[in-house]
């Protein structure tokens, strides 16, 4: 990962100020997956960066790839998601998606399917109301693309098929049969909606509601906490403020 500056397209996952005028940003690019980059003079140079380096902005950037911290030469906002920025619940959900991407994706590994998922979620949030159902749709598809897909057709321990009575969520965020473990119950209906979410490719098609939404949430929250290795700050924020 070294060479001349190259044009990349990506989404800003996080950005923080460094020194007087610089910023360090984390980007999820189509071409190279997640990369960290140093943007020299980003807070001063409106010409080279404008307002492009804001969290969840979709940008086109000129990046000089290096092992570790890349150099971001310039960036231009392709879409700043004004619809998201004008609604607090949307901001929180968009930031959560970015934080999840930052914690769960490997550095320097292209994942175009995940880029498309993240980008579609931001587009969806920009035009539609933020709902927990859509967040769950994003989460289950994220786990699937990143290789952490929970087994939905049978017990993760013994392989037995789940019947109409459903399953339980283990402490490791897996679905197990009631004979293999203890935990919060998850009905067959919720498992079926999770499977359907993986089959449908569009936001807004699958709707989790009521008890099924709560049960799917228990599984997805524990699976994400298990694979991310920590509780995500933005998720805590969403919970505390009930967005």
């Amino acid at each position, binding site marked *: 990962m070294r060479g001349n500056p190259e044009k990349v397209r990506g989404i800003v996952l996080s950005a923080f100020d460094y*020194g007087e005028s610089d910023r360090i940003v984390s980007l999820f690019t189509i071409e190279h997956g997640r990369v960290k980059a140093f943007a020299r003079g980003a807070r001063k140079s409106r010409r080279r960066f404008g307002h492009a380096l804001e969290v969840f902005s979709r940008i086109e950037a000129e990046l000089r790839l290096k092992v570790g911290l890349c150099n971001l030469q310039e960036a231009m906002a392709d879409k700043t998601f004004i619809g998201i920025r004008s609604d607090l619940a949307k901001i929180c959900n968009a930031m959560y998606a970015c934080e999840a991407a930052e914690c769960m994706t490997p550095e320097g590994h292209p994942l175009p399917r995940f880029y498309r998922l993240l980008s579609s979620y931001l587009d969806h949030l920009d035009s539609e109301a933020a709902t927990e159902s859509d967040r769950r749709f994003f989460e289950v598809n994220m786990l699937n693309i990143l290789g952490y897909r929970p087994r939905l057709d049978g017990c993760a321990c013994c392989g037995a098929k789940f019947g109409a009575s459903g399953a339980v969520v283990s402490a490791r965020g897996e679905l197990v049969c009631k004979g293999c473990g203890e935990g919060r119950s998850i009905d067959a209906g919720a498992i079926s909606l999770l499977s359907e979410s993986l089959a449908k490719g569009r936001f807004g098609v699958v709707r989790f509601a009521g008890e099924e939404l709560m049960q799917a949430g228990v599984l997805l929250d524990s699976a994400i906490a298990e694979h991310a290795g920590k509780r995500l700050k933005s998720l805590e924020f969403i919970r505390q403020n009930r967005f």
Partner: protein
Amino acid sequence: MLTNISSLSRLVSEFKKLPGVGERTALRMAFHLLKSPSNLTMLSEALLEVRDRTHSCSVCFALTEDDPCSICSGNRDHKAICVVENPQDMMAMERSNAWHGVYHVLEGSLSPLAGTGPEDIRIDELLKRVSSGNVEEVVIATNFTVEGEATALFLTKLLRQHKVRISRLAHGIPLGSDIEFVDAATVQWALQGRNEI
């Protein structure tokens, strides 16, 4: 060589903690002060004075030497509060000479990514001031970053429960700039917030 002079080494390492100061600048500053002992004394006195005399105003949380600060105790319009993120923003507003009301410094902004929630900034104190009944208008002047927008939206939601006029600073094309060089999002915001003349 510097390690032999521990006091100088300590001064350099303290300078290096300041924003934008690297090893070379820290060294240059330290040697400059060493050349003129009077400057060194004045600097050390100024540092101690600023530590001992400045604190947050108990009303608006701006940086002050008196309590309440000169703005809160002065002849300003106390019915209008301008909410800013930090004391530097308040100074920028004061430089404009355009605001004649008082201020409320939040000492931060909401940031879901950093885990900064409503209880970490001075929102409760603002609501107490507003619910006292003497306030008629609140101008939200948080930054136009995602965090600043989130804070403004959160405050708007809370302030709507009170009988006050709520407004947000206008944003759009900067003074003296050509529209052809302004980015698309700023033009979009400017069009949305256009004024009839």
